[in-house]
């Protein structure tokens, strides 16, 4: 009664369930990342759109480098990079820079806090270091670990440039919005200090004006 045709039908049922489960996992992951981004935006309205734009610029830079990183992982890390800001006191969200040393300690702790939150999800393990180290500097002057050069994970170095670019273009905290030329010059000045010089060169080599002007990209990163 449970001969071969039935067994084969049962195997087909398994294959269909596997596909269904895979779709559910993928959509749960995307939904969870959306939830994180939205939570940060509710707490810090000034950051609205920031995570998605950082994801966009990270993916473009990754493409310009010949896609050394898996795009889905990089997009996830970029979307989640600021989740640790949920742990900052409300008074610091808008200004970002703190008033005293204690506040500055909290700011320096946010990447580590974000990484710790994300560690609750096994599927995120591969890219959590990119969140933890996205404020490291090429010369070792960043935080939280003070890593330098190639010791900083590539994903973190990519997100750092995308993050800096978006903050300068949009303005954040006490920093006003800058022009594309001003932002590009700023990246160039910080190349080798805060940013990986090779990545900074690749970033500035991209058609930034065309990319910036093309508002369709928002749909791509929101999809």
């Amino acid at each position, binding site marked *: *009664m*449970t001969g071969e045709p039935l*067994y084969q039908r049962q195997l087909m*049922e398994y294959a269909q*369930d596997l596909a269904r489960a895979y779709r559910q996992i993928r959509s749960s992951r995307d939904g969870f990342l959306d939830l994180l981004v939205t939570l940060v935006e509710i707490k810090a309205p000034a950051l609205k759109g920031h995570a998605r734009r950082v994801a966009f610029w990270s993916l473009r830079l990754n493409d310009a480098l010949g896609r050394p990183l898996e795009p889905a992982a990089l997009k996830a890390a970029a979307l989640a990079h600021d989740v640790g800001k949920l742990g900052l006191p409300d008074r610091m969200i808008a200004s970002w820079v703190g008033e005293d040393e204690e506040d500055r300690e909290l700011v320096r702790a946010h990447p580590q806090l974000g990484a710790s939150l994300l560690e609750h999800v096994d599927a995120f393990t591969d890219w959590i270091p990119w969140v933890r180290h996205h404020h490291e500097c090429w010369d070792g002057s960043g935080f939280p670990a003070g890593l330098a050069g190639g010791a900083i994970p590539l994903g973190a170095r990519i997100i750092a440039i995308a993050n800096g670019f978006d903050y300068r273009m949009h303005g954040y905290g006490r920093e006003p919005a800058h022009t594309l030329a001003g932002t590009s010059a700023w990246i160039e000045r910080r190349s080798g200090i805060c940013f990986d010089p090779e990545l900074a060169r690749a970033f500035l080599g991209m058609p930034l004006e065309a990319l910036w002007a093309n508002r369709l990209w928002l749909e791509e990163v929101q999809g």
Partner: protein
Amino acid sequence: MKVLLIEDEPDMVALLEATLTPAGFEVHAERSGDAIEALLERYDPQVVIVDVMLFGSRADGFEVVERIRRAPGHERTLVVVLTALEGDTYRRKAEATGADLYLSKPFSPLELLGKLQSAELLTD
């Protein structure tokens, strides 16, 4: 959580073991339910999955279910009936004998896992 699987088809046993063991269930497979009371005593399962058509057994799956329900301490054991038989008659018979879940082969492994995991929450 312990699962007693009564199934005479080796391929199906292998498939169910491969489904349930990685999900954290401890599976004990037996080919016949003739000595169901002794099996319940030996394994003390929280779940019994039983195939209705058991070749080489005197007892069919429905009888096994009835005997599980009469066994002391197993009134609330989750009983899943697996069958290649389709149709409401068999489903009603399974329900009348006290089965909690009736799955026609080919069944959805996700549905089976979902039901078992819900049962696990209830026994916690």
